[in-house]
């Protein structure tokens, strides 16, 4: 660290503003920018021009246009996405996340709140506490923001009534306390006139607290993470040559000192901090937030994603209870394999059926089978390997994760860890003596999964049956899992929603993997509409043990054949969620076998599958 001037000591406060439409949020931000030095003459000129062209305030400046920077936002007069704005006073720097009040509400709030130290919640004094106010407060509490100001705005329209302000403040404090927000600063305000925005106003002589800006200047920053045992997240292994092996990363909690004994997690090996290196020279210690490079005294195994933890180690687990916020328009599918990024680790990830979801309007716990866009639920989550993590309330950095879709690569969810599930450390795979190799030797052939996918009526079961007959005749040990049959037993509890379809296939994928372990050639005949679950099934067995067969029949042809009369039922409106009609089917990109049933007979289709199995070495050549 270099020498600093006073300006440098002031620090940076990140906060978010929220409030419903037309409660004066943009006016407030505009005024904060305007009063600070960060709004320049040419920007004001542009704002004047934009105000007359797009503005909603007549001849006056429309401050909303300062923050709504996208063309589409200006055209429609709404805020689409979070904007980050900067301003500064003599005492502090600020980044304000301006979160939109419109669609995708929760998603934007959570995004803005995830990096904020404080929240300013605006309400309209004429309307008092609304659903929106409660919703913001619930989200702010969930995200762990401890410093909250309630700006009771538009008090000018209530003649600066003290009793109106006191009444709203009292009721709001009670509500916030229920959510665990211990302290709320309530400020009477008229943002349009600047009352109590930057300085306190004599229009509210009865108010003895501070103006909003004064409050923002006094909010403590990062106080929780400064104390407690040091945590250092390794982002990159730094090896310029074979004389130096350092771990580049960041101090996420406490202070890391040379000489500290650290646990390397996961793994648990111990070592000592030998050097803390930067381009400006070695440091005796690295405080919270520092990006440095650590050299350890011993040659221990440390890689990207490892956490160096001083004093008591943190949880290492592959299952957690977590609050999950769903961000994508496609709902969360419990059981589907996603990816999660947690710290600097990207791991396979799935969610059990949620225990409940939280009604963000009331805070109530509601039953849930899945989570739709913007919904927040509590669920157990599973990772495909153990990671070092902490509860979110202890560490935002080590207790948060994002969920990524494996195929689209979109960020579909986010989560906050409540605690590690102990049973994840206690249930272990049981090693057995008679294994797959033993069964292969006895059977005289290799096992595999032959996975038939395609629309209802495509001909999957007909072809699978012919293949099984041929295999059986050659003495191959087979088993056929057919969608209709399994739904009468093992999966009788599942319906046809997307979530249930995912669970349906997940179970079949697990069963077929077990049967492969049993040494069988497993024929699976399921519509299996989603690529993700077919990929899951593929991932559960060895690479050369999976043969995806796409029974490609155009919808029109399947409808014409209609062997089970289902398409007729759909037509009569007696059947919903039917694949290809009102429920999607995602065809494979590169199946091992692609059968066109409009040009080949079932027998020749079966022969094509058998040929592929010979090629894969499952069947002998003869």
């Amino acid at each position, binding site marked *: 660290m270099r020498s600093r001037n006073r*300006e440098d000591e002031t620090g940076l406060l990140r906060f978010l503003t929220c409030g419903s439409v037309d409660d004066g949020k943009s006016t407030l931000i505009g005024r904060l920018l305007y009063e600070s*030095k960060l709004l320049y003459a040419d920007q004001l000129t542009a704002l004047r021009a934009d105000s007359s062209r797009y503005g909603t305030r007549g001849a006056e400046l429309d401050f909303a246009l300062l923050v709504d920077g996208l063309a589409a936002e200006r055209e429609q007069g709404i805020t689409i996405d979070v904007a*980050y704005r900067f301003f*500064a006073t003599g005492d502090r720097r600020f*980044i304000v996340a301006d979160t939109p009040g419109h669609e995708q509400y929760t998603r934007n709030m959570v995004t803005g709140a995830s990096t904020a130290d404080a929240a300013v919640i605006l309400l309209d004094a004429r309307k008092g506490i609304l659903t929106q106010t409660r919703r913001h407060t619930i989200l702010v509490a969930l995200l762990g923001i401890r410093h909250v100001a309630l700006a009771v705005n538009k008090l000018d329209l209530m003649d600066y009534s003290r009793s109106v302000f006191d009444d709203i403040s009292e009721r709001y404090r009670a509500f916030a306390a229920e959510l665990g927000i211990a302290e709320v600063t309530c400020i009477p305000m008229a943002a349009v006139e600047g009352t109590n925005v930057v300085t306190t106003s004599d229009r509210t002589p009865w108010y003895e607290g501070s103006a909003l800006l004064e409050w923002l200047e006094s909010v403590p920053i990062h106080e929780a993470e400064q104390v407690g045992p040091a945590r250092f997240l390794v982002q990159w292994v730094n090896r310029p040559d074979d004389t130096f092996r350092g771990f580049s990363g960041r101090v996420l909690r406490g202070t890391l000192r040379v000489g500290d004994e650290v646990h390397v997690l996961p793994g648990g090996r111990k070592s000592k901090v030998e050097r803390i290196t930067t381009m400006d020279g070695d440091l005796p210690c690295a405080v919270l937030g520092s990006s440095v490079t650590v050299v350890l005294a011993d040659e221990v195994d440390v890689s990207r994603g490892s956490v160096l933890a001083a004093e008591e180690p943190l949880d290492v687990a592959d299952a957690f209870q977590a609050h999950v916020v769903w961000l994508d328009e496609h709902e969360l599918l419990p059981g589907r394999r996603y990816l999660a990024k947690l710290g600097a680790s990207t791991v396979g990830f799935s969610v059990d059926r949620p225990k409940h979801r939280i009604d963000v309007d009331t805070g109530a716990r509601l039953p849930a089978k899945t989570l739709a866009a913007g919904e927040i639920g509590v669920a157990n989550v599973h990772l495909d390997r153990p990671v070092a993590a902490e509860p979110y309330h202890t560490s935002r950095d080590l207790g948060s994760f994002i969920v990524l879709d494996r195929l689209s690569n979109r960020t579909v969810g*986010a989560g906050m860890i409540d605690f590690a599930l102990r049973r994840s450390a206690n249930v272990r795979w049981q090693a057995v003596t008679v294994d797959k190799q033993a069964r292969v030797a006895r059977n005289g052939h290799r096992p595999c999964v032959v996975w038939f996918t395609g629309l209802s009526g495509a001909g999957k079961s007909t072809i699978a049956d012919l293949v099984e007959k041929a295999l059986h005749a050659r003495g191959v040990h087979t088993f056929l899992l057919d969608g209709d049959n399994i739904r009468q037993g093992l999966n009788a509890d599942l319906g046809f929603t997307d979530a249930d379809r995912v669970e349906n296939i997940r179970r079949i994928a697990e069963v077929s993997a077990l049967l492969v372990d049993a040494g069988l050639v497993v024929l699976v005949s399921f519509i299996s509409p989603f690529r993700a679950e077919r990929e899951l099934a593929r991932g559960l067995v060895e690479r050369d043990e999976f043969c995806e067969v796409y029974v490609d029949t155009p919808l029109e042809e399947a409808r014409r054949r209609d062997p089970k009369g289902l398409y007729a039922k759909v037509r009569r409106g007696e059947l919903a969620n039917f694949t290809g009609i009102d429920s999607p089917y995602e065809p494979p990109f590169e199946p091992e076998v692609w059968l066109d049933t409009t040009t080949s007979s079932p027998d020749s289709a079966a022969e094509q599958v058998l040929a592929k199995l010979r090629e894969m070495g499952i069947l002998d050549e003869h």
Partner: protein
Amino acid sequence: MTLGQLDRLEADSIDIFREAVAESERPVLLYSIGKDSSVLLHLARKAFYPSPPPFPLLHVDTTWKFREMIAFRDETARRLGLELIVHRNPDCVAQGINPFDHGSARHTDLWKTQGLRQAMDKYRFDVAFGGARRDEEASRAKERVFSFRTAQHRWDPKNQRPELWRLYNTRIAPGESIRVFPLSNWTELDVWRYIERERIPIVSLYFAAKRPVVERDGVLIMVDDDRMPLADGEVPMWRSVRFRTLGCYPLTGAVESRARTVEEIIAEMRDTTTSERQGRVIDRDQSGSMERKKQEGYF
């Protein structure tokens, strides 16, 4: 003890550099020679020290940069021992695209936007670091730190990946790329204070000196070479000017100034009433023009 403001910005930027490099195959730093690029490069060196930055520099050259910038660019790469890739859009070279005959908008699109897309494709870069800051311009204020681009290099402002905590989604399909902006949360003043504190070398065009300029549409344009056509009776005047931002010399307005040191520049900045981009001719093409350019792949 806690980190000061510049320390914290520095630590955040280093964190972003490391995260992007750890998760990409072929990263590159878009080096445009200006003050932000200089800070970016300095941070990149800090992020990976004692290793050198594990990526080359890419300069998308328009052939219309100030001569001093080009000299500074080559000297910087040599001094730091870094690989420098210079890409000039061959179509523009062949057609002699320039801001006078073809207008600033077409000039910028063909040289810079198309040039950058060509270079990204040619070298198959999957991550490109840029020095853009959110305080520069309204559409940049809305852009993510990790900004996803399609295989056609398009930015869709309405469909950005949500960015939570410090967790960045770096997953892309072949051909797609991510622009990474480690200076997102820096302001112009931060950049200058950091240059002062770290003694980072910058092009001397940022410091006031007597330079030959003409005034066009209220903007002072420096006559950097004899390719610039002068109107009848137009004679370059020698004025004490400097630049707050650097681009193609015919499109970059100078400001009258006496500031000859970084300290004096900072003092001047504290009193200024205009933003740094007011001298950028290309920003004024039309309202929302930066957003449109960015959607097409502009950096």
